[in-house]
């Protein structure tokens, strides 16, 4: 079994049509994309374009209406859940557990696909979980009640849980939603570090800047069914953003602390009354 880090794996989606049941019209059609371990892929698109539908299908929560997903050319639709979970981890956006689990207990859940039938946690599992917490510098939270943590801390704990799962690929649903400016940056740094450690990270975001800052690949989904995949810097252009989100954009090159040119974008907000509404 190849795992992220040692050998490269490639996850590819070919001709996906996604939707909710055969009777309803498909939400998405003709989706092709590929991501290798060590890469990042940002999924951009307006509300209602089908980002959630796409990755729910990729995670196997929904059956694709047509098309296949494969890892290293092996069709994953025949994999049982456990094997699937050994390769792909998922970090949900909202995570509000009904019970006050401790942080360590939450992270240990990442070990589930690696446990035997009776599912008892062993010493190695504890070690892996603790290493995951330490690697994110949140080892001190280990005994805390997860439900009392701040949003940023919870996001880090969920990343630790995904790390404990030791996947080749990681799917993150808007990992920076509801985080403050600083925590957003810290999560993005973490995403980049995860990719550097040999995991392929797929994440959705509402902020095109995050795609530009991360570099790597982007997939842009329009509400009209358009689907563009490419390198972030080349793909996320003012024209694309304008057509994707139906707003005018401000787009500039800025210099970061290390002297590199970074493209920055923001929506253009018209002054009240200047658009002739008044």
């Amino acid at each position: 079994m190849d795992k992220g880090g040692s050998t490269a794996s490639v996850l590819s989606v070919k001709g996906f049509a996604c939707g909710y049941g055969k009777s309803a019209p498909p939400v998405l059609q003709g989706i092709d994309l590929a991501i290798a371990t060590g890469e990042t892929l940002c999924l951009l698109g307006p509300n209602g374009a089908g980002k959630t539908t796409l990755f729910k299908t990729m995670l196997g929560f929904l059956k694709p209406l047509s098309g296949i997903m494969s890892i290293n050319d092996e069709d994953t639709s025949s994999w049982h859940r456990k094997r699937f979970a050994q390769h792909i981890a998922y970090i949900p956006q909202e995570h509000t557990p009904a019970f006050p689990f401790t942080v360590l207990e939450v992270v240990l859940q990442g070990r589930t696909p690696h446990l035997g039938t009776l599912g008892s946690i062993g010493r190695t599992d504890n070690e892996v979980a603790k290493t995951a917490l330490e690697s994110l510098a949140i080892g001190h939270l280990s005994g805390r009640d997860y439900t009392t943590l701040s949003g940023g801390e919870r996001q880090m704990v969920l990343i630790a849980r995904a790390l404990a799962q030791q996947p080749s690929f990681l799917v993150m649903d808007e990992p920076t939603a509801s985080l403050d400016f600083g925590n957003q940056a810290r999560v993005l740094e973490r995403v980049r570090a995860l990719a550097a450690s040999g995991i392929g990270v797929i994440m959705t975001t509402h902020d095109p800047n995050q795609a530009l800052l991360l570099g790597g690949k982007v997939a842009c989904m329009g509400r009209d069914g358009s689907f563009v995949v490419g390198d972030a810097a080349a793909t996320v252009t003012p024209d694309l953003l304008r057509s994707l989100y139906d707003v005018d954009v401000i787009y500039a090159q800025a210099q970061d602390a290390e002297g590199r040119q970074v493209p920055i974008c923001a929506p253009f907000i018209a002054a009240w009354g200047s658009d002739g509404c008044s």
Partner: protein
Amino acid sequence: MGDGRYRSFSVVLLLALLLVVAVFASLTLGRYAVPWEELWGFVMSGGSQGIDETTGNVLFHMRLPRVAAAVLVGASLAAAGCAFQGIFKNPMVSPDLLGASAGAGFGAALGILLSLGGAGVEVCAFVAGLAAVGISYFLSAAIGRALSGVLVLVLSGMVIGNLFQAFTSAVKFVADPNSQLPEITFWLMGGLSAVREGDLLWLGSAALTGGAGLLALRWKMNVMANGDEEAMSLGIQVKRVRLAVVAFATLLTSASVAIAGMVGWVGLIVPHLARFLVGADQRILLPTSMILGATFLLVVDDFCRSIYTTEIPLSILTSIIGAPLFVYLIARTRRSH
């Protein structure tokens, strides 16, 4: 991590000790007093130090079966409640969520109406309890393919539970008001006075099967508390695990209700109390709930049979104790958040 685990283990050990003490105390307690010195001497000598015949009769044929039944029923209901709260992600859930108690109540009422006698009534109650949950489950599977599995299941359980309660009312309506109606009413109020040695064999096997099944699934129940999608992404076969948990928990609930009648609150409140003591991890929460449930019901049953000259129905006391305790626990949980 050590500290938390060690603390939890010592709590469990203490609770187990408390249960043993409660069992001893319960054996001596009752209208026919068994001096504890006599009992202690008998147990410590491994049975060689004899006790007189009357005491032996009371002890082995009346009190021991009853104590054992209280322990088994308490542990079963608490385990079922703990498991249901876990997989339905809701601490307000009790083991009769899917209609097990309502079904068993109807089965018992029907058995009494048909004059089937003690054992027949128990079998009827047990089978009807299983049937009610089975109907809820298949109903939800039939209508809920595209919808969220848990919600449809809970709603189906509500519908079926209500339906079976209506059936029970119908049976009461046609029952003989002089003999059968009071019997049905008393049965539904719950109690352990009718327990005989013969009941223990099958109550014990149901409790053992259900209890062992749930214990084997306790890590998966932890993961299921995250919701279906996250549990799937962590490698759990959600539908299969849910079906297994529902089956084991229903076995426990139906057997308990068949033996003890409707005993409310135990399955709801004991897991709360246990969570308060050892945290949310089912690995330790489930066994703790079992021990605590056994002790709770045993002590309540002791009160039922010794407070007053006639026995007080079990569900009256569990409610009177359970309701304020529950309010207190909710208040404590709120404050700690």
